[in-house]
């Protein structure tokens, strides 16, 4: 059986859902971050799959490649976001001595 576009899309959707569940259900901040990274990577997989199996036969290489270019931007920006997130985790730990998101209750959640 050949692996087609649908298979990649289903895998992407599964990864995205698992990531979203982790981001919402994990109590440890680092776990939440891992969930968010998984969501970003599910998006990357979807982009690459759409680039690999173009919908229109007359798409130029440049148009097809814009999916790949998008992925590079996503990876770069996600790295910057993770750097800020970990710095914030350090800051919160210094203040509260915990990074358990359930205990972030100084402000009414």
């Amino acid at each position, binding site marked *: 059986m050949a692996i087609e576009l649908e298979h990649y899309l289903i895998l992407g959707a599964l990864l995205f859902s698992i990531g979203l569940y982790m981001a919402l259900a994990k109590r440890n901040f680092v776990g939440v971050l891992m969930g*968010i990274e998984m969501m970003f990577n599910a998006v990357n997989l979807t982009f690459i799959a759409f680039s690999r199996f173009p919908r229109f036969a007359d798409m130029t290489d440049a148009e097809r490649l814009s*999916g790949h270019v998008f992925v590079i931007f996503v990876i770069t920006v996600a790295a910057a976001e993770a750097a800020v*997130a970990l710095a914030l985790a350090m800051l919160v730990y210094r203040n509260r001595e915990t990074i358990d998101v359930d205990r972030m209750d100084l402000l009414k*959640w």
Partner: protein
Amino acid sequence: MDSVNRFGPELILLAMAAVIILADIGWALAGTGAERMRRPALGALALTGTAASIIWSALLIAFDEQGEAFSGMIRVDDFALFFNFLFAGTAAIVILASIDFLRRNRFVAEYYALILASTAGMMLLASTIDLIAIFVALELTGISLYILVAFMKDGRSSEAGLKYLLLGAISSAVALYGMAYLFGITGSTSLDEIGLVVSEANGETRSALVLAMVFLIAGFGFKMAIVPFQMWVPDVYEGAPTPVTAFLSVGSKAAGFAVVMRIFLTALGDGSISSDWATVFAILAAISMSLGNITALVQGNIKRMLGYSSIAQAGTFLIGLAVVAAADPQLLLGTSAVLFFLGTYAFTNLGAFIAVIAISSKIGSDQIADYAGVAKRSPLLALGLTICLLSLTGIPPTAGFIAKVYVFNAAVQADLVWLAIVGVLNSVVAAYYYLRVVLNMYTAEPASEESIQPGYYLGLAMVVAVVGLLVIGIFPSPLLEASEAAARVFG
């Protein structure tokens, strides 16, 4: 060179951010002798940056330099220029309001640099016409704001920053997933190209388009702070430093609406799909207004109350977006109503938050109950806050009145009478909690007789905001014409 020229307003903000950081290092090397001049000089540099950005935008109009830049990544048109003025002006007022606030903070340079970088991101959000550039601009705005929210480094501020970052990252991942499907269906990341393919869409691709649309609304709904993506608003507004809260409530929200208008009107503006998102926006508008106002009723903290009120205001803006998808003439009416409302809302909310900065820093509390008798301690501040709250309620002769009439009129003309009625009923509810603050300031007995004197810069920022909203309230036509010209971009 055309590209760089049209990118100028953003470029100059980013360049000034770098200059500020370098100048701060220079001061550190110069030793303690020059320390006294450091804070005013850095503030002046930041203000110069925003002023230069405004002047550059004005020159682009004067020399008729509108057009595309960077091979179709950015389009500088009346819509983008409208938001250039809005964001640079907002940043300038926020910087003015921050000078006193930062008196005891070591990281002044970083604060100004982040404000400028975030403003540049917001401007880009209004002018980009390619999904890749939209994503980068979204994150430029977002990441700068995450740091600004946590800037005080204490328990509350860092907690607010953490919550903002988590929900912000999740929402941008959701928006990205929508973009991935939009790219997959249409084979392009350019909004114009996407719009062309979408207008030829048939039943086969329609369901996938609706899926992409839902993800995009969910992702950008976070930036616009509409129900049900509003959970972060009260916590972040309460925990963030108040000038940053003001910046968030005006800049970040307007940027969200700008990018949503760009994407939905350009890429998904075709009739078959636009009736779908118009319905979604109409329902979200009604829920946002009602839930925001009802929750605001029971708030004791004025920053939380203004947070919930900003959710309700976002619902009112959404009425304009819901109107857009009706027939062609309404398309312009709805868009220009949103733009006009955003312009008036910027002055109103900035004024309200500046008054809160001035009063709260003196009485040391954000509780509405502690605002008792403020009118006796500082008549001018109380008057300013009252005018802003009247404008938020929508009472003439303030700008908020005209904006609300404009939006409700647009809704009635597009046969969305039920939405206009929900909006008017909500204004009545809102009047209760806005006027409660006013009543408390004027009739209750003050806890002490000591007068409240805002700093010079804070007073100046307050005067700009209040005069602005009164002038728009009495002479609305310049802003009306500007928002109509900006709306014509999508005509």
